[in-house]
């Protein structure tokens, strides 16, 4: 293997951390939260590909492919909901949706 596993894992961890930061910083904007989650899932895929290369097995790659399929389903669902909410309230700001809370 040209690139050692540890390098890949560090890279994936940095990517994952960037995704978490994106979710935390832009947590008011639904679209940005979704992008952050996508980055986190991409980091997970990278880990699977690295692991499957390290051990010479294909099941990690299958897992990565399945994550791609899952992500696309999830994003289509989330965007459908964003469009619907935007139509109702004319905003994608999460803070505007706060009818439900402890009273």
């Amino acid at each position: 293997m040209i690139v050692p596993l540890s390098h890949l894992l560090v890279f994936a961890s940095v990517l994952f951390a960037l995704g978490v930061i994106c979710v935390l910083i832009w947590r008011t904007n639904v679209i940005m939260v979704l992008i952050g989650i996508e980055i986190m899932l991409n980091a997970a895929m990278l880990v699977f590909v690295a692991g499957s290369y390290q051990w010479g097995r294909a099941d990690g790659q299958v897992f990565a492919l399945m994550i791609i399929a899952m992500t696309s389903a999830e994003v289509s669902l989330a965007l459908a909901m964003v469009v619907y909410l935007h139509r109702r309230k004319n905003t994608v700001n999460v803070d505007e949706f706060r009818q439900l809370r402890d009273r």
Partner: protein
Amino acid sequence: MMSMADIQIALPLLILAIGALITLICGAIGRKQTTGYLIAVIAAVGAGLWSMQTPPALLAPGLGLSASGLTRLFSAYFCFMAAAVLLFSHSYNRYRDIAGEEYPATILFATFGMVALASATNLLLLFLGLEAMTFGFYILAAIDREQDVSSEAGLKYLLMGALSAAFLAFGIGLLYCVRGSLGISEIMQTTLAATVRDPIALAGWGCLLIGMAFKLSLVPAHLWTPDVYEAAPPPVVAFLSGGSKAAAVLLMVVLLVHVAELGTLRVPLFGLALLSMLVGNMAALRQNRVRRMLAYSSIAQMGYGVVALVSIQGHGLQAAAFYAIGYGIMSLAAFGAIGVLEANGCGAELDDYRGRGFTQPVASGALAISLFALAGIPPTVGFTGKFLIFAAAIRTGENALAILGILTAAVSIYYYLRLVAALYLQRGAAEQTESISINDTVLLALSCVLIILLGIFPAQLLDFLKIQLL
């Protein structure tokens, strides 16, 4: 190649998937609402009955699906739960004008995810089953389009759920890097011993636990629960509480059954259980909205479930599996009854439930019995389940958790009985007669009978679980 044995073991999954597709097609052809529900109920009951029969092998040779007793017990439980929820939804959705065949089809798809999770032998299938189930619930939580809050609940649940899915996938990926295999037993045996100091394995378990804390709605990751419980239709909440949470507990049981002791997982699980019991019960005390109160109570109940998981050396896994099923039946009765009450014009506040015991005896009676069970008053399944959990905790030497659990359970009796008192001891303004369909009556009666039967005669189910979880 799929052999006959493979098909026989995978048939519940096939029935559910094909049933959901037929439901969708029928909705496109016919105009009658009832047809879709009928087909979905038949598919769920058929899949449940099929998974109860003895399989040709314990492991499907070509597919890697498990058909152990535990798998079949929980598959049947999920399928029958789905059928009951569909029947409850039929009358409630007519009242709320939730039309369309996508509702029964989505329930079936979510059930498909649960059954896939129950039959998983590797982490890939486990993850996909869990996500398929949660996807169904994202849609179901937001399905009441006439209500503003319903879509808000769906959005909150979706964002938190997607975040937890990312954590789960990353955690599983790290564990895969450590072991080079996705098989559950292999990964559990190499990554969870107390001697393992591999930072990658520890990081993997950390991410996995964060994801699971969300699915079980344990305290640092519980914020979505009250919102979804308040805004989603009550039958959906019953399914979420009885199906989704039982599936998450089952997932932890399926993972932990391969190890003799918790090792590095003990401290984080201990903390999650402690916080969930404390915060859940204390927050429920302050609630005046019934559904929010039950949501916080469900957070606390999952805390008790985690106590059972921590007590793995004292046969805690049996207690956890037993409690998952028991809690599912209790919440089915509770939210089924709340659905009937709301369809009869009952509001969300505690005050709206005043005197309902006299005007709507059937639903209020079922609600009262399930509240007694949730409070842990004998002779109900709630008492037996809590007794088993705390006994297991003391056998393991987790005395602190056991004592705290018993104390918070005693505190929780107050807010459960406050609702019972509102139902029966105060006179309400509403003077109307109860309109309740026959299937709702039968289902409420059936779940109440089960609550009491499992409370008095738990031995058969427990012996079965004991054999499965040795």
